[in-house]
């Protein structure tokens, strides 16, 4: 029986198994291999909130979705073409997301009586015919793995831990991928444990040859390289891009980087990543709580460092008072909120865009702060770099928003080199001689005040959270002064719009019937939906906002060029309220609040509805 090879443009694979099955690693390896091969791609890991949820349960299912293709890829994909189900629970959780003719690779030993019961199945779905229509491939991965390494002196538990490599090897065969990348990975990861190294290598190869030798599989698939913009690429995850972007901003401003942070999902990886970069002079401080984290940053910024604090929703809530202090002090500070499902502890491992209102309004008093949001994993680099630039050059704290979806997602990144990055101009107030009086709240044309760091002769001055007089910075409770200062601080932030780029249209005609306005991690889905509709002849346009405060100066003009404005968000309607308020237009919300990304297909349906 011959094996035929089918050429595909785009494939979505979901790796799903128990938390201990190593699905994140398997997915990550397949992703890297595909990236190095030259596919465009998007990924989305989806893990349980519990670190060690009971084995075999629905709550313990960990998934990793990968969309790769020879065409441009904007999202991790909606429905899957292939589902790897390491156990019954993994099948149950993910089946509804599989295409009706999709492939299921089921690990038979994950469908024993115990696993079936834990997943709530009465009968085995892989034997009772209920999966008819799907292309079901049953494999006893556990047994095949054990057989492959029978003679290696490892315990059963350790042997079973290699199961994921069998699946990975099989998928490499099925999708015609080279194994080098993973072989190198295993060799370096287990360089000082020969048995484990040997076992993983052998199981990986066994998986590959299993496809080759058992004649049951009649089809292999091939996905060509993608036609991407020429250049050198690497694969990058959102949080990693934030960390590198911050280091880049430190280098391009000449300011030492200080990170004050308290661990919280999904922001912790930025702390982990930055803690590695000590030879860049990066100081990371794991504070006792989020309040200390941001306050330590205020101290570091007062001392002349580029200070960053990273957190997620609940931590943002704790930082609010100190953000107000930073606004009063008018010093640089970057507050990164990697949003997750709220309120309270909410959905710690799920994504949401529900902290926009908090970012723009969520502090006591009139407390304006620029807000910038990243739209994709790679865009985290540019967006956080820009946040640093604005913060330093305008002497203001800035909020940077990302979310769990782009933080953990990955995509190819055509990275810049140092010489292509803007310089960030950090200017410190110069020493004063001869008892000249230093005026800490004297302003320049941007309305920003001097950054006067301790240790500079003649600049001794006191600042604080109390209302102050402009120019001198002296405490003032004078009625007119307060109103003046409130307006001045607002104007200072608004004036940033003179220094940021005008809003550009992402896609579609400049005028017309419908404009889709997005922000943050919904980018890929909107981009893909609008692109598809345009090729089908629909008249729809897309803009994606990076600057949420202040807005680009031409935003009103753009909005007014369209009959309808639709705003998709993973929240209960936040940007839509701000846009309605500011531009007095009847913007139409589209909201999904399920802790999961908006899908291209649902957007297409909604957009078509609005175009009727």
């Amino acid at each position: 029986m011959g094996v035929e090879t089918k050429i595909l443009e785009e494939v979505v694979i979901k790796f799903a198994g128990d938390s201990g099955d190593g699905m994140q690693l398997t997915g990550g390896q397949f992703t890297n291999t595909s990236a190095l091969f030259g596919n465009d791609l998007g990924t989305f890991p989806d893990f349980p909130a519990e670190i060690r949820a009971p084995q075999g349960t629905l709550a313990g299912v960990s998934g990793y979705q990968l969309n790769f293709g020879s065409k441009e890829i904007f999202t991790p994909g909606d429905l899957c073409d292939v589902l790897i189900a390491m156990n019954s629970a993994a099948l149950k959780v993910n089946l509804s997301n599989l295409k009706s003719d999709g492939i299921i690779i089921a690990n038979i030993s994950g469908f024993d009586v115990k696993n079936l019961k834990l997943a709530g199945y009465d009968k085995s779905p892989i034997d009772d015919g209920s999966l008819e229509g799907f292309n079901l491939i049953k494999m006893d991965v556990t047994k095949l793995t054990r057989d492959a390494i029978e003679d290696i002196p490892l315990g059963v538990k350790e042997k079973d831990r290699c199961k994921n490599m069998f699946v990975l090897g099989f998928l490499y065969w099925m999708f015609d991928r080279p194994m080098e990348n993973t072989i190198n990975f295993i060799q370096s990861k287990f360089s000082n444990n020969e048995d484990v190294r040997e076992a993983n290598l052998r199981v990986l190869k066994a998986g590959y040859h299993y496809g080759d030798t058992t004649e049951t599989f009649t089809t292999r698939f091939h996905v060509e390289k993608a036609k991407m913009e020429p250049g050198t690429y690497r694969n990058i995850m959102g949080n990693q891009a934030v960390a590198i972007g911050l280091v880049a901003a430190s280098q391009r401003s000449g300011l030492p980087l200080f990170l004050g942070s308290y661990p919280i999902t999904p922001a912790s990886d930025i702390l982990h990543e930055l803690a590695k970069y000590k030879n860049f002079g990066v100081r990371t401080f794991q504070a006792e709580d989020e309040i200390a984290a941001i306050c330590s940053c205020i101290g570091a910024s007062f001392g002349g460092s580029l200070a960053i604090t990273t957190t997620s929703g609940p931590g943002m809530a704790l930082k609010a008072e100190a953000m107000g202090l930073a606004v009063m002090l008018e010093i640089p500070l970057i507050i990164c909120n990697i949003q997750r499902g709220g309120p309270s502890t909410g959905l710690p491992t799920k994504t949401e865009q529900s902290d926009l209102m908090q970012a723009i309004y969520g502090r006591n008093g009139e407390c304006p702060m620029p807000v910038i949001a990243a739209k994709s994993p790679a865009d985290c680099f540019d967006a956080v770099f820009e946040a640093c630039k604005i913060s330093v050059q305008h002497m203001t704290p800035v909020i940077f928003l990302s979310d769990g979806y782009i933080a953990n997602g990955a995509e190819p990144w055509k990275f810049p080199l140092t010489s292509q990055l803007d310089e960030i101009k950090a200017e410190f107030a110069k020493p004063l001689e001869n008892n000249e009086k230093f005026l800490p709240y004297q302003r320049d044309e941007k309305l920003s005040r001097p950054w006067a760091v301790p240790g500079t002769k003649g600049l001794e001055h006191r600042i604080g959270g109390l209302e102050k007089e402009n120019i001198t910075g002296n405490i003032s409770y004078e009625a007119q002064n307060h109103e003046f200062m409130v307006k001045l601080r607002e104007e200072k932030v608004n004036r940033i719009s003179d220094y940021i780029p005008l809003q550009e249209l992402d896609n579609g005609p400049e005028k017309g019937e419908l404009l889709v306005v997005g922000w943050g991690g919904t980018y890929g889905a909107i981009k893909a939906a609008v692109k598809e509709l345009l090729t089908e002849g629909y008249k729809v346009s897309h803009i994606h906002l990076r600057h949420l405060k202040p807005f680009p100066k031409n935003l009103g003009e753009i909005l007014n060029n369209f009959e309808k404005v639709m705003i998709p968000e993973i929240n209960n309607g936040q940007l839509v309220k701000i846009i309605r308020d500011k531009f007095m237009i009847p913007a139409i919300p589209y909201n999904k609040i399920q802790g999961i990304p908006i899908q291209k297909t649902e957007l297409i349906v909604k957009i078509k509805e609005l175009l009727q």
Partner: protein
Amino acid sequence: MADILIPDALELKLSPKDFQTDQDVRWCPGCGDYSILKQVHTILPQLGLKKENIVFISGIGCSSRFPYYTNTFGMHSIHGRATAVASGLKATRPELSVWIVTGDGDAMSIGGNHFIHLLRRNFDVNILLFNNQIYGLTKGQYSPTSEENKITKSTPYGSVDHPFNPIALALGADATFVARSIDRDPAHLQQMLLRTWKHKGASFLEIYQNCNIYNDGAFEIFTEKATKKENDLFLVHGQPLVFGNLEDKGIRLDGFTPQVVSLTNGYSKDDLMIHDENDINKSMILSRLYEMKSEEYIFPKPFGVFFIRDRSTYEEVMNEQINTSVGKLGKGDLDKLLIGKENWIVE
């Protein structure tokens, strides 16, 4: 304390006046804060530090107005967080002399968490806790150092809280310098301020401060002529613990239990506990001395340095790590970081 004087101090020719600002001091007349401000202004010129290298950071409270009245760099931050702000400044600018001014509400209540963490980390900063055992700025509620049963605006039937003992708390948090002084004893306060400054590491100085508006007389027995000698125990390293109107009493250790003994009636100085600033166990005993109960006598309140220990400071170790890393890997190369480990080229 002549040994603390730095030769530069003479060259810099600074005087207390140089540390005053043009702002009106707004504490209530008679407030103990005035004396503390004066003693700080007195010792600052003796440190041999340039004004621009000194930073005062405070939280919120009457006491926390302090930076506005001191002509150095200063920040009046938010309630309870001066310790955290100072940690970030000291981590990044280890060469600065950083002082924290805080109150008992500021440091022990809302800022309690940052207070203990700063101590265990041992940043080289000086913490001046103005303890008036009351909330001054918010007009007279009891504080975490107020005594049990205290009647205040918020506790008309008496407070049911048990108070913190700041010295014991600091020792428990592994502070490397712990001392106590009082607003009404300028000479002792100056001496303690100088020692606080001199210690490399987190230095904690509790200063009893009279709030004559909401808690007047809280420390009277330690300051009034008639009672102070019977109630104050001044700690001197290497010396026996003697107190009393006629220096006729002492503290003796019976095992781990301290007792007050009379030096005119059977005991001599040789029998007394000798103060050892480096002995954590003895310091712990002293921190609780005043709370000890006895039918026969009352225990005095110790003033002075309870404990000192040398331990690496946080900023030292943090910067060492950076230097080691630069030594090993070379100065970070941004292009290398951007390029990463695995790339592919699209043509």
